[in-house]
């Protein structure tokens, strides 16, 4: 039973990170109908930026905040400069742009910081004042920080004027313009926030998977799976979806399950994500919490 609880809590922790990525994906999708395939690489790059700040001697939390802020600015700039020209272009062109960004970020990171694996410190100290057999300090911190970030985002969207304007611009860009909202800048803001949230996810996952340019590809896949499971039209759903994917992933790796199936499912986690994605897309394309979108012929 203990093992089960441990796996579940660890699952929630890693799931929180997937939730960050899932939320970033959903935010951009809601505003622009794009899937940003470069989200993972952008988060990885942000984590390397944080690592650079650490190298300059800055404390971990300062490096974290600076990297997240820098990611926000970068996200805004990327939307205005790189994504805007293909805003109304065919979908294939948009996909190419995201792939291009993916390739650029991955290779520039490899160029600047090389492909060797680097350890990355946790934001959370080993000694938190109390211990638990069921869950480690980093994982506890991950869950707490993620929930805090998500709460901030929720409050931002629900109670601030800009948050309302962003929601309006995403829901109905034409009407948003008619009340004087600059939809283009709302999109840029959305990208900025998504980049910032992605950076949080990257910095939280780096201590677990170690920092290197390819560290986020699996995480991104899980993030997508979580977003789809929760429903890409629902930010809350994306978060829950991310958590669920994390927990499921850990349960699937439980020795008992491997015993039943006959082989070690731990080695097939990415395939699990793939099956989940295709399964959701085929049978519940709106996810568990999303709205049904009816397409007019």
């Amino acid at each position: 039973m203990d093992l089960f609880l441990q796996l579940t809590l660890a699952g929630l922790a890693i799931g929180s990170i997937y939730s960050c990525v899932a939320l970033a994906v959903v935010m951009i999708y809601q505003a622009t109908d794009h899937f940003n395939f470069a989200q993972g690489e952008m988060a990885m790059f942000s984590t390397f930026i944080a690592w650079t700040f650490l190298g300059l001697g800055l404390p971990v939390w300062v490096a974290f905040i600076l990297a997240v802020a820098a990611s926000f600015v970068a996200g805004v700039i990327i939307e205005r400069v790189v994504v805007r020209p293909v805003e109304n272009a065919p979908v294939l062109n948009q996909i190419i742009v995201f792939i291009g960004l993916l390739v650029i970020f991955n290779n520039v990171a490899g160029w600047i910081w090389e492909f060797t694996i680097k350890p990355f410190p946790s934001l959370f100290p080993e000694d938190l004042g109390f211990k638990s057999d069921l869950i480690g300090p980093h994982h506890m911190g991950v869950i707490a920080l993620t929930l805090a970030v998500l709460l901030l985002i929720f409050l931002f969207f629900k109670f601030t004027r800009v948050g309302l304007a962003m929601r309006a611009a995403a829901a109905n860009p034409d009407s948003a313009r008619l009340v004087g909202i600059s939809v283009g800048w709302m999109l840029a803001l959305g990208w900025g926030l998504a980049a910032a949230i992605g950076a949080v996810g990257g910095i939280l996952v780096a201590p677990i998977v170690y920092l290197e340019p390819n560290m986020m590809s699996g995480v991104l896949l899980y993030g997508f799976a979580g977003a789809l499971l929760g429903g890409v039209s629902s930010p809350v759903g994306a978060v829950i979806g991310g958590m669920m994917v994390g927990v499921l992933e850990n349960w699937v790796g439980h020795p008992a399950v491997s015993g039943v199936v006959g082989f070690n499912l731990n080695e097939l986690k990415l395939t699990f994500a793939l099956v989940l994605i295709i399964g959701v897309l085929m049978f519940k394309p709106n996810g568990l919490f999303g709205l049904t979108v009816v397409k007019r012929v």
Partner: protein
Amino acid sequence: MARPNRITPGLLIGFLIALAVSIAIPYVVSDFVTYQFTLAMAYAVAMLGLNVLTGYNGQFSIGHSAFFAVGAYMAAIMIEHFGLSAYSALAVAAVVSFFAGFLFGFPALRLEGLYLALATFALAVATPQLLKFDAFEHWTGGVQGIFVPKPEPMIAGWSADHSLYYFALAVLAGLMVITWCILHSRSGRAMMAIRDNPIAAKTMGVNLPLVKTTTFGISAMFAGIGGALFTYASEFVSPDAFNFFIAVYILVGSVVGGIVSIPGAIFGGLFIVFAPNYAQDLRLAYPILPPPWAIFGIFLILLIYFVPFGVWGSIERIYAWTKRKKDR
């Protein structure tokens, strides 16, 4: 152009010249460069497959590395475990890849545009891990992979490199002709009708599911054949050689060459193999330059802004423009 070209005299002459040049190449360059051209043709075959699927049928795939891997591994397994010749193994690889694509085509029916891209993205990311899976290790060689000796020369007296080059050339040329025939048939028109207006196509009696899944199968088959050729050239398959970036290479090559075209695949293949080499040479001279693929990422984005129709598309447009000037 959204439709494949008529065979004009110009096109035919161009094709024959290209063929003649291709035949001459191994006699003019070193064995290593011949190997590079063979690699380029392997990619070109896969890119041709992607052109058929995305350019002519409108279904996205950023996961063609998976089918490339299926073909590559099938060929390797047939040779290593069943003692088949390279040429029979290629046929097996083609058939298996076709079915892999055809089967994937079923869930793909339900997925539109971006969602299909996402599903294929997941497929590509998951493939290396699947290939490393220990239950399959007996067949796939696990992380170590499989060594595949270069195929015996087709004609005695030829070097293995030359022989493989001409084999790949024959396969590529043959597949290009086959593609041209398919696109000019009723099936081809159905494919393109689905791309342009699926609902109208349906009302005109096109069997959407059948055409779409079959196209996926054909596209995967091409990718698988490309994978097998790749295996013969590299003499080695391993899981990490077939990661997501291979899918990126295939996509980039298709787009650079011109995704709605047949000859575009050739330019794509040449680009993917030779451009990084030139970029690397440039870097040796000017160490300050970033790695090739960082530059290519920027180049790709600029390409899609300004020249989304690729090299072949540009050739077509220039040709049409000069024709208009002459007609005045």
